[in-house]
Structures are given as structure tokens and as C-alpha cells.
């Protein structure tokens, strides 16, 4: 070993001393820089500056973390969950959903829905945040905006039942020809293209919220770009919105039903998709809920269980299924092959042993169990035909299919899925099942989200795992999914009998006749193995036990804090 000489030791000591001083200087420099940047960043913003605890009794407020910045707060154009959540708190439509999901009076104090139209009588004391009354004209303006081709609203299709809407969207008629009239400031008349028995529920939907024309025009195209580019008429107002950083609702003192609103503020000082970050924030007492949207992943759920937090479950309303391809060149066009596949899928095993996510339930039909029928739940009125796993029968169908198709060997079926771990796991499960029980080869085609969508729409698959979340609270949102004209019918399933029942459901007002039509649709889908349904999705979330009265919804504003309140343990 090299031993240092006395001279070297001397220089080392001296260098060490220099280094010590340099370190002190460096630390000082770093702190100075921090201070300067801290001062400067006061100008760049950031919402966590004054954020308090998750449940704040002193200010009667709560704090939350959002999964993303609200992308679109223009109610006529919005289509995503976070924007919908924000708009649902700061705005109100003609009607609204109460805590039991019943449709109740909103801006309209009374209303009637007929076969050919609807009339809404607006209340006198509904006010915009600048004090002016909310009038029928604000709805006419907003709805015309929705169908205007220049707006290019994604959810314009919700207005299809209103007279001329489809023609206006297609650019064949002017937006002014839409079947909606402000008879006076406080009466709105709507004319239908066809009967819309669920129109009252639709009137509570974000897309149909009011927009005031003079204010909209005064923003010169930047309506809803910032908090000051919005007017509010809901339970809260958007008091702060720093893009990508934070937003905050404060109670709207001009809201006509303000005694209903108990919280003074809902603060969202954190925006991140990182689930660990939100778990840590909850652990640190900085937020009141974890996993409100999207739900907790399996890893986060495990952590929540270990920590002993109060875990709640809700249904998100969506149904998931294996969509089969009916294009002419596809093997899955053969009914016997589809029956064979249908008969070997054990949903119970899939949901409880493979997915193993709490809140998920097996789906026997494309109509989920929570849908309301004429009197009872739809699925109680029209139970889905039971399909039990039968490998022998399945093999018989498979042999028939092979004969019909004139095949010597089965070529591999293409299973299109997302490249996420959970999606891959699901595809691999079906690969194994079809191989073991039927001897069919399945080739998994993993694609990132956008590419999966592109391939799905182009029909480059035999089987694709897909799902559908409801757009409005009526069985029709699921019932017309496989109609030949529906753009979401990616497998291009065409069945004139099914199309006829969809038309019946669309054109009938009588609830019993409509439900009977949906019952027929359900029967056809299962008998024809048009789709293999797998599960209905659920979500788990954590909520601070001192926060009460939060309403969770399958369809509509979710979560809803307008009735929420704080209560010490």
C-alpha cells in the first residue's frame, strides 16, 4: 500500500480545508438560489401554497388530488370525466340528479316530457354568478352551439332526438333550425324528432347546460379557457384554476338552493396520475379521498388494506366484453365457432380467480344489472339467458364450424388488446382457455392505446377486448351498441332482426314495450353469440371517515360534493 509522505499529508489537509470552505459556500449558494427561485415562482404559480389538511374543520373545506387537469370546461364540448366533475359543481342544467339519482328540479322548477316534445318552466331565482338571471335563451344558445358543425362537439349525438339536430350536425341545416324555442325568458319548449322517454334524465346532463350568449361572445373564442372566462350558476363557483397545478371550488352564494350546500370550499391543490403520490398525500393527511377517479389499482388497494383505511366500493357502470369480428373474411363470422368460444368462457373464474379486483362482477349480458326497467331493474324483468360452460358441446360446435368453413387446420385467431399489464393478463387468460379447451391457437396482438383503437376501427382483429360506459341513464345506451349503424359496432355485426328491435326501442314511448324490445335484443345477442360479455367493472376508493354525504354515481356528476359535510368522529 502506498503510504502518504508528510508533504502529501500536508497538501491533503490543506485541500480538505479548502473543500470544507467550498462546501459551506456551495450550500450557501444553493440556499440563496432556492430563495431567489422561490420568490420568482411566486409569479409562476402553483396551487399548493396555502393548502390545508384533507379535512379542514376550521375552514369547513376539503382537499383532493385530481388525476388530470380538466381538459375542457366548455360544457357544450366537454366529454371527459374530470371536466364533467368540475362542471357538475359549478353549473346546473334544467334538471339535476339528487342523492338517490332521482331527477329533480334544477334551473327549471317544473317540466313535462311528452311524446313529441318537452316544456320546461324556469325558476325566477336562478342566477348567473354576475347576478343576472338564467333564462331560456341561455339554453337555446348552448344547444345550438352543441349541434353547430363549427363547434364539432363530441357529444352532439346526445341531441340527435331533438328535431333537426342530425341534419344540422351534418351541415345540411342552420343551427337556428334546431327544435328548441325560448317562448319567453322563463319557458323553454323542445320539439322531438322521435320520442325520448329518458329526456328528463338527459336534461340533467353536462352537454345540455346553459351558456349565456353575451358572455360567450365577449370572450372572443376563449370561453372556458380560464376561471375568469366562465360564468357559474351551480352550487359552487370556480374560485381558482391554475392550469396543470390546481383548482378550487367555493360555495356560490348566488345559487338558488344554497342552503343545500354545506361545504365552504373544495380545494384541489394536487394534479397527478401517480397513485403512490396520492396514497402518500392521504397518509400525510393532505387529501380526503384516494382513488375517487380512476379507482384504486390492485397495488394501491393492497396498501390501503394494510393501512386499515376505510375502503368503499362503487359501480362505474361499464360493461366489458370480447367483441368478435363479422367482416366477410373473418372466421369469427361463423356462428358455430362463436358458440364454441361462448361455451368455454367461465366468467366466474375469470372475474374471481384471474382479475381478482374487488367490485368486479361477472356480466351475463351486455345490459348491466343496475339498469332500471319499466318497474323493477331491467335484468329482473328480463333475466339474461343462462350460458353454462360445456366443453363437450363447445367441441361439437367447433367441429361443425370446421366442416362449414372447409378448414383442414384452424389458423390462429388474432386477439387484439392494449399493452397494459392487466390487459395483457386478460388476453393471456383467454389464450390459455381457448387452447386448452378447444385446441385453438390465439395470437395476441398487443398495441398501445391509440394503435389499438385504430386497428379496432379498421377491423384488424378476430377478437378484441372492449368495454362500454353509459352515456345516459337508459338501456338504449347499451341497446343500440350492436345496431348495424352504430360506429362503436367495431365487429360490424349486422342483424336485421336486432336492428328492428333497436328501432322499436327508439320510437316507442311505452316503457313496457321498450323493455320488451331490449329483452329481445338481449336474447338475440346471447343466442347468436354476437358478443361474449365478461364483466361489469367496479371501483374501490378510500374516503376520510369524517367526510360524509358524498354521492357517487354510475352516470352523471361523480363524485358529487354538493351535499357533503364534515362531522368529527
Amino acid at each position, binding site marked *: 500500500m*502506498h503510504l502518504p509522505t508528510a508533504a502529501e499529508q*500536508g*497538501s*491533503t489537509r*490543506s*485541500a*480538505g*480545508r*479548502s*473543500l470544507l470552505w*467550498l*462546501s459551506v459556500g456551495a450550500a450557501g449558494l*444553493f440556499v440563496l*438560489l*432556492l430563495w431567489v*427561485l422561490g420568490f*420568482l*415562482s411566486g409569479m*409562476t*404559480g*402553483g*396551487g*399548493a*401554497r396555502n*393548502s390545508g389538511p384533507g379535512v379542514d374543520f376550521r375552514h369547513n373545506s376539503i382537499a383532493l*388530488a385530481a388525476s388530470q387537469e380538466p*381538459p375542457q*370546461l366548455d360544457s357544450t*364540448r366537454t366529454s371527459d370525466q374530470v371536466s364533467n366533475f368540475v362542471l357538475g359543481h359549478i353549473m346546473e342544467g334544467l334538471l339535476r340528479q339528487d342523492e338517490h339519482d332521482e331527477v329533480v328540479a334544477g334551473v327549471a322548477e317544473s317540466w313535462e316530457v311528452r311524446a313529441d316534445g318537452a316544456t320546461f318552466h324556469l325558476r325566477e331565482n336562478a342566477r348567473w354568478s354576475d347576478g343576472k338571471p338564467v333564462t331560456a335563451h341561455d339554453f337555446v344558445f348552448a344547444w345550438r352551439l352543441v349541434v353547430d358543425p*363549427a363547434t*364539432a362537439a363530441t357529444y352532439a*349525438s346526445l341531441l340527435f332526438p331533438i328535431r333537426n339536430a342530425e341534419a344540422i*350536425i*351534418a*351541415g345540411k341545416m342552420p343551427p337556428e333550425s334546431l327544435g328548441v324555442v325560448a317562448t319567453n325568458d322563463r319557458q323553454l319548449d323542445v320539439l322531438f324528432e322521435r320520442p325520448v322517454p329518458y329526456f328528463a334524465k338527459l336534461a340533467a346532463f353536462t352537454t345540455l347546460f346553459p351558456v349565456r350568449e353575451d358572455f360567450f361572445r365577449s370572450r372572443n373564442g376563449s*370561453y*372556458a379557457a380560464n376561471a375568469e372566462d366562465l360564468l357559474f350558476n351551480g352550487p359552487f363557483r370556480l374560485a381558482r384554476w*391554475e*392550469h*396543470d*397545478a*390546481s383548482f378550487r371550488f367555493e360555495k356560490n352564494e348566488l345559487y338558488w338552493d344554497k342552503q343545500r350546500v354545506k361545504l365552504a370550499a373544495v380545494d384541489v391543490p*394536487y394534479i*397527478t396520475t*401517480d397513485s*403512490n*403520490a396520492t396514497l*402518500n*398525500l392521504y*397518509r*400525510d393527511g*393532505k387529501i380526503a379521498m384516494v382513488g375517487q377517479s380512476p379507482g384504486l389499482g390492485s397495488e394501491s388497494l393492497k396498501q390501503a388494506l394494510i393501512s386499515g383505511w376505510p375502503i368503499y366500493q362503487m359501480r362505474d357502470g361499464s360493461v366489458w366484453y370480447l367483441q368478435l369480428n363479422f367482416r366477410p373474411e373473418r372466421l369469427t363470422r361463423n356462428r358455430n365457432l362463436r358458440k364454441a368460444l361462448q361455451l368455454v368462457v367461465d366468467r366466474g373464474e375469470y372475474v374471481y380467480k384471474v382479475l381478482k379486483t374487488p367490485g368486479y362482477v361477472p356480466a351475463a349480458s351486455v345490459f348491466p344489472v343496475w339498469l332500471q326497467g319499466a318497474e323493477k331493474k331491467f335484468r329482473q324483468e328480463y333475466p339474461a339467458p343462462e350460458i353454462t360452460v360445456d366443453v363437450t358441446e363447445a367441441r361439437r360446435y367447433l367441429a361443425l364450424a370446421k366442416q362449414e368453413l372447409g378448414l383442414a387446420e384452424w389458423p390462429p385467431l388474432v386477439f387484439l388488446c392494449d399493452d397494459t399489464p392487466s390487459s395483457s393478463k386478460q388476453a393471456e387468460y383467454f389464450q390459455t382457455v381457448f387452447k386448452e379447451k378447444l385446441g385453438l391457437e390465439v395470437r395476441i396482438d398487443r398495441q398501445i*392505446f*391509440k*394503435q389499438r*383503437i385504430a*386497428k379496432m*376501427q379498421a377491423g384488424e382483429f378476430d377478437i378484441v377486448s372492449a*368495454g362500454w360506459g353509459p352515456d345516459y341513464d337508459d338501456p338504449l345506451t347499451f341497446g343500440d351498441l350492436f345496431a348495424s349503424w352504430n*360506429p362503436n359496432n367495431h365487429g360490424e355485426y349486422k342483424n336485421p332482426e336486432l336492428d328492428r328491435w333497436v328501432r322499436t326501442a327508439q320510437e316507442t314511448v311505452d316503457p313496457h314495450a321498450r323493455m320488451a324490445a331490449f329483452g329481445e335484443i338481449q336474447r338475440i345477442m346471447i343466442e347468436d353469440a354476437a358478443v361474449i360479455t365478461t364483466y361489469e367493472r367496479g371501483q374501490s376508493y378510500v374516503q376520510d371517515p369524517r367526510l360524509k354525504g358524498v354521492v357517487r354515481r354510475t352516470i352523471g356528476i361523480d363524485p358529487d360534493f354538493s351535499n357533503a359535510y364534515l362531522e368529527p368522529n
Partner: protein
Amino acid sequence: MLRYILKRLLHGLITVWFIATATFIAMHAVPGDPLSGEKAMTPEIRRNLEAKYGLDKPVVDQYRIFLVNMAKGDFGISYTQQNREVNDIIREGFPVSATLGILAIVFAALGGVLLGALTATYRNRLPDVVIMFLVILGISVPSFVFAALGQLALVKINAWSGFTLFPVAGWGTVMHMVVPSLVLGLGTMAYLTRLMRSSMLEVTNTDYVRTARSKGLPPARIFLKHQLRNAILPVVTVLGPAIAAITTGGFVVELVFAIPGLGRYFVQAVQQLDYTVIMGTTVFYGAFLVLMVIIVDIVYGLIDPRVRLKA
């Protein structure tokens, strides 16, 4: 000197144009488009949206329009946040990322130089062994692990002390900046420490240091003026690209600490095929990187008398 800078800037412009064009082609070659989503639209609605965004025009026309607008400094409106201009997203996000990045890079540079000098001075002795072990750890452990661990540590410290000095996440005050910037700078610091150590050892054995010593200069002076100043050159070289990478590449740290920076857009925009944001952030980042490299080369000429800048 001026001619040199102008020439470099011209080259930089060509580089940026090339980056933009390559990205544009790659982006359009990928299947899928910004408008597609889980729910398909009716053909009429889709057509209206395509017309609104100019996606109904041929790709060549789209490219031409993009180039003209880029020359004007306009990248258009985001597809995913339809009320925001890409320029606004960059303008609001970049200062945050830059603040975080500057802190991280200053921490990394100061720490790296000091620790590197320290390990070289105490070569093969205890400080060297301990620090070099930590350096290997710092280089091999990815930043998302440090971020998660750092955050968890904060939760524990807050719970134990019953008081919050450094918040767990969020942005807005000085205290919000400390931990994320340390986490972000850690990897670079480890890398710089190693670089500084070897460069320092190299310098110690050079003739001019030996001459200085034999002249009887004070050790502190030799250390500061002859060793440190010369050993620091390689560190400056890598600093330029490192600044650009850190100020824009803090994606994971920004996500974990819920920091409203630009980093997340680099990843999310690609996933969502948000054409305008992809182009805006890529061109911005490309230009920033090119500029940093040019600046480093100029600085290099200032601190190293052997380097003369000629056009």
C-alpha cells in the same frame, strides 16, 4: 468569435428543422390519430372535428401549414386541452420545470464537483470508499425509486415530528422545491462525482501541478487554481446536455410530486397522439438542447485557454 456564434446558430436552426420534420413524419406514420378514443363518433361529428383541426387536408398541406406557423412561433391548439394554445402550455409549464431543473443541476454540479474533489483528495481512504459506493448506487438506481422513497420518507418524518417542514407533494413555495430538486439531481450528481474524481486524479499527476508544488506555492492555491480549475473542464462539457435533459426530463419526479411542469407533456402527448403538443414540445426541447450545447462550447473557450473558437 461573433462569426463562430452565428455559424453555430445557423447549424442549430437546421438541426431544429430536421428534428421537427423527422418528428412530424414519425408522428403521422403511427397508426391512430388525435381524435380517436374508446368511444367512436358518428361520421358527421368526426368530419366536423377533422375540418376544425385541418386534419381533412392532405398531410403535405398539413406539413406546409405547420412549417409556416412554426416560423411564426405558433404551434396551434392542443387536441387534449382544446382551450389552450401549445405556446401557453409551454409558457406556463416550462418555468416550473426550469426552476426545478436549475435547482437540481446546481445541486448536482456543486455536489458532484465537491464530492469528486473530495474523493480524489482522499483517494483509497474512508471518505473515498464510502462516497464512491454511494455514487454507484446513485447512478444505478432510477429516479422514480428515489422519488418514491424520498416522498415516503417525508410522510414518515412529518408523522413522527407532527409538523410539516417539507410538503409531501405540490408546488408553490420554496419548501415544495427542496426535496424534488434533490431527488432529480441525485443521478447527475453521482455521475459528475465520478467524472470529477477521475479528472482530478489525472490533473494531480500533470507536470504543471508538480511544477507548482516544486515552486513552493501554498497547497490551497495549488488545489484551487491549478487542480480544481483544470479538472472541472470535462464536467462543464457534460453540463450543457445535462441541463437540457434535466429541465425537460423530470417527468417522473413531476408526476410523483404533483408538480405542474412541462415534463409530463413529453410522455402524455405522445400517448395521446396530441399532434400539436408533440410538435411544440419536441421543437422547443430540441432548440433548447442545441442552444445549451452552443453555450457550453462558448463557455469552454472562456475557461480553457487551449480552446480557441474559430468560425
